[in-house]
C-alpha cells in the first residue's frame, strides 16, 4: 500500500427507509473526520443514476482509490455500485458496502440514537477494512448450453418446451413412470373448468416429440458435481424390468397381468396392475414393473407378462442404470405432495372411510377415475374399494392442516378455489344434493376467481358456513356428523354428511430435502425451495444457474405455475446465452514463503482445490483457481496465515473486527 489511501464515503437515505430513522447528513459529517476519508456525502437514493454519477464524478474529482457506500444490503446492490466504481475508473473490488438499512434502520427503528451510533460504528469498521483492499480480477469460463429439468409436472413440461424451442438441449428427469404431475390427476381446472387432461396431454406429447428434449422418466438425480455453467449430473434410472427400446407400448402385458395394486394415481381408490402405465395417456408410453408387488419378483411365480409380450421386452433381471449428463443450468420443478391428513386426527382421515381428500374427489369426479366419474361414498369389500351410494350431503372443509401452527403454517393457496370447483363437481353431477362449505376466509384473488366464486355462491344447493368444525364423528352407517359454529348467522349447526372432503394442506414432495441438499439450494420455513429475492428474483436460487419452477417455490395454481416456469426457462436461457460465467474473485491464495506444507488446508477444502506441490525443494500448497469456489475454509484453517482469501484476508477482517469491537464514542 504505497499510495495514499483516499476514501469516499456515501450515505444513502433510501427515501425514509434510512433517512427517516437517522440523519445521513450528520453521519456524513461525523465520518468525514475519519482518517483517509477524503469526502463523505449523503444522497436521497444512492442507487439512482444521479447517485451513481456522484460516485463516478468524485472518484475523478478527488482522486479516490477506495469507495464506501453505506446503504442497503450488499446482497442487493453490490453489483450496482461495483459497476459505478468501475465506470469511475477504479477496480470494482475497491468498493466496500455497509449495510445500514437491513442491519440498522429497519431493525432499530424505535431506537434512532442507537441506530445512528451503530451506523457510524459500521462505517468506521468499513473505513478500517477498506484501507486493506486491493484490486481483484475475475476469470471467465464457458458454459455448457444445455439444461437439466427435474420434475415433469406442468412446470417442468412448460420450462422444457420453452428452452427446447429456444434451441437448448433439455434433459427432463421425472421420477414416476410418466410425466404430467398432479395436473394429470385433476378432473377440471378452476376457474374456467377446462378439462385438465385435455389441455395437458398435447403438451406432454410435444415433450415426447421435441428433438431437443431427452425425457428420462422413472429416474432420479443421484449426484451433482461441477459448477454453474458446467454441472455434471449423475442420474439413476430405476430398474423398469421392461426394455423400453424393444417395447412398443402395446399394453398387452398390463392387460394380462393378474395382480392388482391400489393406484397411486387414483389416490388409493382405483387399481393398477403390477406392470403398469401411470395412467392411460402416460408419456412415455412404456410400462414398468413394480418390483414390490410383481408376483414373479416377490414370489417367483407368474411371468405372464413375459409370455404375452409380442416383442420379448420384459427383462426381470433389470438393474438400476446410471447416466451422466453435462448441463449448464438446472431447473427444479418437483411440485408438491398432500400433507398427511392422518396427522389431523380430529377429522378422522384414515379412520373414517368417508373422509377423503380433495385430490381423491378429483379422482372420483374424473371420467377416467375409479368410478368412471360417478361421485359416490366410499365402500370397501374385503379390503378393496368399491363405489358406494350417491351422497345426499357432502361437506367440504377448507384449510385442513393449512394456516395451522401445529401443522402447516402457510396458506395452501389452492384449497379455496379447489373447494369451489369441488362444489361445482357435486352440484353439477348431483343436483339434488346439499353441499356444505366450511370456510375460514375465501381467498379468491386470481384472475377470474371472484367471478367463479360468485358463480358457485349462486348455486342454490351450495351452503357456505363461516366456521371450522373441531371434531368429526363417524356414525354407524359410515356417515359423518360434526358441529360447526357459523359466525355469519351466529348459530351452531349440526351437519351430517355422507362424504366429507378435506381441502388439504400442500407440502414439498417427499425426497425434496435430499435433492435440495444435493443442489445446495436453501429452503423456506415450509420446506419449499427458497428464491433469491421474494419480489425481484422469484425463480433464481442462492446458486447461480439453478432455478425454481412452479409449486416447488411455494404454493401456486396452474396459471401461476406456468408463468413461473416460463420465467425460470427465460432466466436459465439468459444465463446460458451469455456464453460464459465469471468465477468468484474471492479466491484463495498462498504465500509460498510462509506456507509450511502442513496440508491442513487440503483436508478442509470441499472442492479438492488445493494440492501440495514441491517448489524449490519446499512443500507448499497450491490452489487450483478453477476449482476454488471461494469459501475461505482453508484460510480459516491455515495455522501459519499463509493461506489467504481475496477480499476476506486476515488483515481486512481483523481490521473490521477490531473497529467494531472498539465501537464509537457517541
Amino acid at each position, binding site marked *: 500500500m504505497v499510495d495514499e489511501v483516499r476514501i469516499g464515503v456515501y450515505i444513502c437515505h433510501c427515501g425514509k427507509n434510512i433517512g427517516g430513522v437517522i440523519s445521513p447528513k450528520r453521519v456524513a459529517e461525523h465520518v468525514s473526520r475519519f482518517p483517509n476519508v477524503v469526502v463523505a456525502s449523503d444522497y436521497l437514493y444512492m442507487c439512482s443514476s444521479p447517485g451513481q454519477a456522484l460516485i463516478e464524478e468524485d472518484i475523478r474529482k478527488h482522486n479516490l482509490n477506495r469507495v464506501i457506500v453505506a446503504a442497503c444490503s450488499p446482497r442487493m446492490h453490490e453489483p450496482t455500485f461495483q459497476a459505478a466504481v468501475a465506470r469511475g475508473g477504479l477496480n470494482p473490488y475497491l468498493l466496500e458496502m455497509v449495510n445500514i438499512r437491513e442491519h440498522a434502520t429497519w431493525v432499530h427503528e424505535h431506537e434512532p440514537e442507537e441506530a445512528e451510533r451503530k451506523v457510524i460504528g459500521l462505517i468506521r469498521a468499513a473505513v478500517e477494512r477498506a484501507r486493506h483492499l486491493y484490486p481483484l480480477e475475475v476469470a471467465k469460463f464457458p458454459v455448457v448450453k444445455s439444461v437439466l429439468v427435474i420434475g415433469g409436472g406442468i412446470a417442468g413440461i412448460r420450462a422444457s418446451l420453452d428452452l427446447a424451442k429456444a434451441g437448448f438441449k433439455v434433459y427432463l428427469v421425472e421420477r414416476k413412470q410418466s410425466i404430467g404431475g398432479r395436473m394429470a390427476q385433476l378432473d377440471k381446472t378452476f376457474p374456467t373448468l377446462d378439462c385438465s387432461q385435455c389441455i395437458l396431454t398435447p403438451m406432454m406429447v410435444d415433450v415426447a416429440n421435441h428433438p431437443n428434449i431427452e425425457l428420462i422418466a422413472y429416474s432420479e438425480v443421484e449426484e451433482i458435481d461441477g459448477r454453474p455453467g458446467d454441472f455434471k449430473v449423475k442420474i439413476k434410472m430405476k430398474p423398469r424390468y421392461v426394455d423400453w427400446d424393444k417395447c412398443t407400448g402395446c399394453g398387452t402385458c398390463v392387460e394380462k397381468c393378474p395382480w392388482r395394486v391400489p393406484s397411486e394415481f387414483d389416490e388409493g381408490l382405483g387399481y393398477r396392475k403390477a406392470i403398469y402405465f401411470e395412467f392411460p395417456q402416460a408419456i412415455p408410453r412404456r410400462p414398468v414393473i413394480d418390483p414390490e408387488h410383481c408376483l414373479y419378483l416377490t414370489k417367483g411365480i407368474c411371468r405372464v407378462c413375459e409370455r404375452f409380450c409380442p416383442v420379448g421386452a420384459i427383462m426381470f433381471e433389470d438393474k438400476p442404470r446410471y447416466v451422466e449428463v453435462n448441463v449448464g443450468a438446472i431447473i427444479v420443478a418437483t411440485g408438491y405432495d398432500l400433507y398427511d391428513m392422518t396427522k389431523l*386426527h380430529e377429522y378422522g382421515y384414515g379412520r373414517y372411510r368417508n373422509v377423503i381428500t380433495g385430490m381423491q374427489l378429483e379422482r372420483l369426479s374424473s371420467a377416467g377415475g375409479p368410478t368412471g366419474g360417478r361421485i359416490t361414498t366410499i365402500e370397501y369389500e374385503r379390503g378393496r374399494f368399491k363405489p358406494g351410494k350417491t351422497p345426499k350431503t357432502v361437506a367440504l372443509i377448507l384449510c385442513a392442516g393449512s394456516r395451522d401452527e401445529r401443522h402447516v403454517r402457510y396458506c395452501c393457496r389452492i384449497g379455496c378455489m379447489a373447494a369451489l370447483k369441488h362444489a361445482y363437481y357435486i352440484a353439477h353431477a348431483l343436483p339434488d344434493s346439499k353441499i356444505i362449505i366450511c370456510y375460514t376466509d375465501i381467498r379468491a384473488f386470481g384472475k377470474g376467481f371472484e367471478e367463479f366464486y360468485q358463480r358457485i355462491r349462486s348455486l342454490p344447493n351450495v351452503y357456505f358456513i363461516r366456521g371450522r368444525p373441531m*371434531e368429526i*364423528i*363417524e*356414525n354407524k352407517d359410515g356417515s359423518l356428523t360434526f358441529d360447526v359454529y357459523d359466525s355469519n348467522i351466529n348459530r351452531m349447526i349440526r351437519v351430517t354428511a355422507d362424504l366429507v372432503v378435506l381441502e388439504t394442506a400442500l407440502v414439498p414432495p417427499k425426497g425434496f430435502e435430499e435433492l435440495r441438499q444435493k443442489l445446495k439450494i436453501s429452503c423456506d420455513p415450509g420446506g419449499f425451495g427458497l428464491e433469491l429475492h421474494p419480489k425481484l428474483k422469484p425463480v433464481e436460487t442462492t446458486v447461480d444457474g439453478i432455478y425454481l419452477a412452479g409449486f416447488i417455490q411455494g404454493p401456486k395454481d396452474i396459471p401461476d405455475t406456468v408463468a413461473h416456469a416460463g420465467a425460470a426457462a427465460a432466466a436459465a436461457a439468459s444465463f446460458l446465452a451469455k456464453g460464459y460465467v465469471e468465477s468468484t474473485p474471492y479466491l484463495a491464495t498462498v504465500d509460498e514463503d510462509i506456507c509450511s506444507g502442513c496440508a491442513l488446508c487440503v483436508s478442509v477444502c470441499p472442492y479438492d482445490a488445493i494440492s501440495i506441490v514441491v517448489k524449490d525443494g519446499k512443500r507448499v500448497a497450491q490452489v487450483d483457481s478453477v476449482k476454488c469456489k471461494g469459501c475461505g475454509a482453508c484460510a480459516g484453517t491455515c495455522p501459519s496465515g499463509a493461506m489467504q482469501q481475496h477480499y476476506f484476508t486476515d488483515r481486512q477482517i481483523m481490521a473490521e473486527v477490531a473497529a467494531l469491537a472498539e465501537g464509537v464514542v457517541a
Partner: protein
Amino acid sequence: MRYLLYLGCVIPTKQYAYEMSLRAVFPKFGIELEDFNEGCCGFPLKGVNKKAWIYMGARILARAYERGLPILTPCNGCNVSLFETKRFLEEDPSLRAEMLSLLRSEGLYHFGDVEILHPVEVFHDVIGVEKIKSMVVKPLKGLRIASHPGCHLIRPTNVPRPDNNVNPQKIDNIVRALGAEVGDYPDKGGCCGATMLPFHPESAIKVGAEKIVVMMDYGFDAVTTSCPYCMEMLDAKQDAAKTITGNMDLSLPVFYLTQLVGLALGMDPKELGIHLNLSPVDLVLEKLGVL
C-alpha cells in the same frame, strides 16, 4: 412400590368409594400407599387467582419432595393441576422464587423433581396388563365396558398426560385384561361437564347425559372411569340427568376402574364401596354373580 396417596378434595370428602377401592386394591399388587393429606391442589382456584393456584400446587410438590416418594393422584384434576404447576415453576424463574419465598415459613426450600402418577398409569405401566391378567380370579366375562378417560387424563398435551389424547387406550387395555370386552365410541375423549356444575348445573348435567346416551347407543353394559369428577357426573347425577333431559331411558352402570379391578380379583363389592355407586350397578353385579 410405595407412593404418597394424595387424594385431593373431592375423594376424601365425598367420593368415598374411590378411596375405599384404592386402599383395598393396590396392596393386592404389593403397592403400599402412605397417606399424604395436603388438602386442595388449587385446581378450582386457577380461574380466581393463578398465583394462588400455583402456590397450592407448589406447596404440595415441596412437601412431597421432603417425603422422597412419588405422588399418586387418583383425581384427574389434581394430576393435571400438579403437572401444570410444575411446568409453570420450571418455565418462570421469578414465579419460582416468589413461591419459594412464601414456602419458607413452612421450612420448605425445594420443589425437586417429584414424580406424579395416576392410577391408570400405575395399573398399565407399573404393574402391567399381563400381571393384572394373571391375577384375575373372576373375569368380567360377557360384559362390554366403555372407558371414559376424562379430559384431564389426556389433555392438555403441553404437559405430560397419563394417556394419549389422539387415541386413549390404557383404560381399555386394563379392562380387557379383566376379561371384559371394550370398544371405542364417538367422542370418547369428551368432557363430563363437571367443571360447569357449580355455575351452570343443568347444562353441566346435559353434557354428562349426552355421553351416557352415546355409550348406551353403542351397546355398552357399563362404563368405567378413574376420576372422581367424572364419576360424580356420570354416576351420581344420572338420575338428575333423566329429569333434566326428559330421557327416562338413561340407565348405565358406572364403576371406578379400581372397583372393576377389585371385582375381577374376587373382592367383595362392599369392600370396594360399590354400594355407594348410585347408577344401576346391580345389573352388572348380577351378571357377574356377585350379588
